């Protein structure tokens, strides 16, 4: 674990933190994903809905406007045309009436008395009156026709009074005189009060009607006296196929003009085109049609704008629907209705942009509202997003803090526990349960387990200490016992440095600390050497104790000068007295006559001795055996004798030598023993024993040995 910023990396705390973090991040990622998806979808939906709504509004408003315009403008236009047509029809009728009246009068002029007539009388200003005018150089009093025409005076006055359109009417006579009816007699005079001459036969209406030969409407003309723009309607009157007069009226189309001008206030315009394609009425600055006096007027049928020209041509012949025409780069809705009486057309038109203004206003308003809404939506989304970020941040901080806190709570007792255990290690103080560990979870269980374990460990350590002390004591005692045992055996060589007749050497190598084997040799007197080789059944301290007893008994009885068989029998009797353990000991006991080399011996269940003659090799001496000492009461032993030659050697041993085993569980055996001895048969006892030990060691290798290895060699010199 690496410690940084007060956190342990790689520890439980960090692992818990990692877990919480992974969990939190996964949660946030899922949440953010859903959020992002929903926000995107919502944005897309809002956008789609917006554009759909926009399209729908645009379409619906466009259609609606088109319908409204088509309905209202076309109908209004047609109505206006109808009204105009009606008016022209009335005027036409009036003129036709005057024509017919005049024709009738002139036809019968020979039988008709002249009707009085007079010059304009300014005193009659404001009321309709018949007034005579004449061309310069004409004497109106000489006119034959004027008196005839004057018969129409009252009719003409009545006509002007009744008609809502007519301000005047007149009859121009072919002899240069003229009778007109109006209510403005004073304007016939100039500033000097002189009656102005009136060029009757040069007037457009006169020429027009004469040229046409029938009822005729003039183009737009400026009235001679009023200065008003108007049209004139005139018709020629013939007598016997000869032109005598032209009747006519001035039509000041004030109402139509007013209407035409008023229409512009609504954004639309009305214009009237005559049968020659000339503009008769049009509001000022309408962008398309300009009213010019007839001399200057253009023929709109031949307008360079083909679409407009086509429309005008069509307009003069039929009722058109709502047509879209581009003029000077602007789109116009146009509709036209013919005024059949005069062959004119009433055209209503409106700039398309204006018709679409409400829609556009609505659209822009909608856009504004929409933009507002979208902006508010975006802002809300932004705020929500910020809020989300804040929430995520808070969540992360809270999560981390909580994880650290919880992890800390989990880890703290463990850390404390670890620290405590570290402190306690090497001391004999037990780890104890503490309230700090009472977390109610596995940590408490762990702490409890530690406390119990610690207590038990200390208990065990105490026990082990005690047992070890005991063992050490026993070990020490055993070692002491081993030393005592070893000290019991004669182990200082040369044992009899003053005796040159013989050489003796013996060793005992116990398998355990304390063995049951023993050897012994002692001078019974100057000439007799007692030799003992024995093996106690069993091992360890009991065997050692038994061995000591046996050794002392054999030695005692031998020193008393008893024969070997007697020594063993007495020893047996003594041992059997108190031998509940039924231990026994095999003993070979012999007494060597140093001078003669005669050996008197008895064998109580012990191994055969090995003997070498002066110049021979070692051989087994198959002697007579008796039962082991201590096995059975009252045993008798047989003695036997043999001679150890000078230069001969007697070798005694215990079964530990013959029965030493190797790893394959093979015994060393008597043959190998003889071979070991006969390797250097003439050697002194010490060398012989060393050779034997070496040979045995080589044979057993690492195999564990169970029996003691005890040997004794005596050589007569």
């Amino acid at each position, binding site marked *: 674990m690496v410690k940084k910023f007060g956190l342990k990396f790689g520890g439980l705390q960090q692992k818990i933190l990692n877990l919480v973090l992974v969990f939190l991040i996964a949660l946030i990622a899922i949440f953010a994903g859903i959020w992002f998806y929903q926000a995107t979808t919502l944005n897309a939906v809002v956008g789609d809905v917006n554009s759909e709504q926009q399209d729908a509004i645009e379409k619906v408003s466009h259609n609606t406007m088109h319908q409204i315009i088509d309905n209202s403008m076309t109908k209004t236009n047609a109505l206006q045309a109808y009204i105009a047509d009606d008016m022209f029809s009335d005027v036409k009728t009036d003129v036709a009436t005057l024509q017919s009246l005049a024709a009738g009068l002139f036809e019968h002029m020979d039988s008709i008395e002249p009707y009085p007539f007079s010059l304009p009388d300014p005193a009659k200003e404001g009321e309709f009156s018949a007034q005579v005018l004449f061309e310069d150089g004409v004497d109106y009093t000489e006119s034959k026709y004027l008196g005839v025409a004057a018969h129409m005076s009252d009719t003409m006055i009545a006509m002007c009074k009744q008609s809502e359109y007519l301000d005047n009417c007149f009859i121009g006579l072919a002899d240069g005189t003229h009778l007109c009816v109006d209510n403005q007699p004073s304007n016939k005079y100039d500033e000097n009060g002189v009656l102005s001459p009136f060029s009757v036969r040069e007037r457009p209406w006169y020429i027009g009607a004469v040229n046409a030969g029938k009822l005729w409407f003039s183009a737009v003309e400026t009235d001679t006296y009023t200065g008003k723009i108007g049209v004139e309607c005139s018709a020629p009157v013939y007598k016997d196929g000869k032109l005598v007069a032209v009747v006519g009226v001035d039509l000041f189309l004030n109402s139509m003009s007013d209407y035409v001008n008023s229409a512009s206030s609504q954004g639309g315009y009305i214009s009237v085109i005559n049968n020659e394609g000339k503009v008769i009425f049009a509001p000022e600055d309408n962008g398309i049609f300009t009213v010019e006096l007839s001399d200057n007027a253009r023929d709109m049928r031949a307008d360079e704008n083909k679409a407009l020209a086509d429309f005008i041509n069509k307009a003069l012949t039929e009722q058109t629907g709502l047509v879209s025409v581009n003029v000077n780069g602007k789109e116009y809705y146009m509709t036209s209705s013919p005024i059949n009486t005069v062959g004119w057309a009433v055209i209503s038109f409106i700039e398309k942009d204006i018709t679409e203004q409400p829609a556009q206003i609505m659209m822009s308003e909608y856009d504004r509202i929409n933009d507002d809404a979208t902006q508010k939506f975006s802002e809300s989304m932004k705020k929500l997003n910020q809020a989300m970020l804040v929430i995520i941040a808070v969540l992360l901080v809270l999560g981390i803090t909580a994880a650290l806190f919880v992890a800390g709570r989990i880890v703290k007792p463990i850390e404390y526990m670890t620290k405590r255990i570290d402190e306690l290690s090497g001391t004999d103080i037990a780890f104890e349960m503490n309230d700090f560990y009472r977390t109610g979870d596995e940590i408490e269980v762990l702490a409890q387990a530690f406390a119990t374990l610690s207590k038990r460990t200390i208990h065990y350590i105490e026990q082990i200490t005690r047992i070890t002390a005991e063992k050490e004591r026993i070990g020490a005692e055993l070692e002491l016992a081993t030393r005592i045992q070893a000290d019991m055996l004669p182990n200082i060589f040369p044992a009899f440095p003053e005796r040159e007749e013989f050489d003796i050497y013996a060793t005992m190598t116990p398998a355990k600390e304390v063995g049951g084997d023993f050897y012994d040799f002692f001078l019974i007197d100057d000439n007799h050497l007692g030799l003992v080789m024995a093996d*106690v059944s069993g091992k360890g301290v009991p065997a050692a104790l038994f061995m000591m007893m046996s050794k002392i008994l054999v030695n005692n009885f031998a020193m008393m000068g008893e024969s070997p068989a007697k020594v063993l029998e007495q020893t047996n009797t003594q041992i059997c007295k108190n031998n509940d353990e039924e231990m026994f000991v*095999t003993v070979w006991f012999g007494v060597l006559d140093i001078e003669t080399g005669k050996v008197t011996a008895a064998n109580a269940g012990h191994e055969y001795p090995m003997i070498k003659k002066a110049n021979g090799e070692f051989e087994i001496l198959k002697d007579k055996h008796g039962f082991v000492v201590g096995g059975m009461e009252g045993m008798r032993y047989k003695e036997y004798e043999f001679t150890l030659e000078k230069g001969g050697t007697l070798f005694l041993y215990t079964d530990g030598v013959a029965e030493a085993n190797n790893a394959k569980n093979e015994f060393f055996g008597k043959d190998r023993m003889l071979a070991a001895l006969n390797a250097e048969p003439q050697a002194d006892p010490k060398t012989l024993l060393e050779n034997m030990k070496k040979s045995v060691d080589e044979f057993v290798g690492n195999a564990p040995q*169970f029996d003691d290895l005890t040997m004794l060699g005596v050589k007569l010199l």
Partner: protein
Amino acid sequence: MNIQKSSHNNSLTFSISGRIDTSTSPKLEQELKNSINDCTELTFDFAQVEYISSAGLRVLLSAQKTMNKQGSMKLKNVHENIMEIFEVTGFTDILNIE
């Protein structure tokens, strides 16, 4: 060492295999102590015995002494090398070996 016991009335046979030495003889001693109270005829089958140490001899001696009081004891199928041990130790004098 392995011991197989078979009994018939008051006669009991111990068939022993392996080594009877310091470490195994306490087991044999315990087995005998548990079994021979009512036995009048104890037989050891030594056919499978490889080796017997002085500790094993002690157990046999102890058994022989017990059986001297309550019946008879004998050994059979004793191998030559085991027999040699018995001869060396003089046990042939006190054991009934067939």
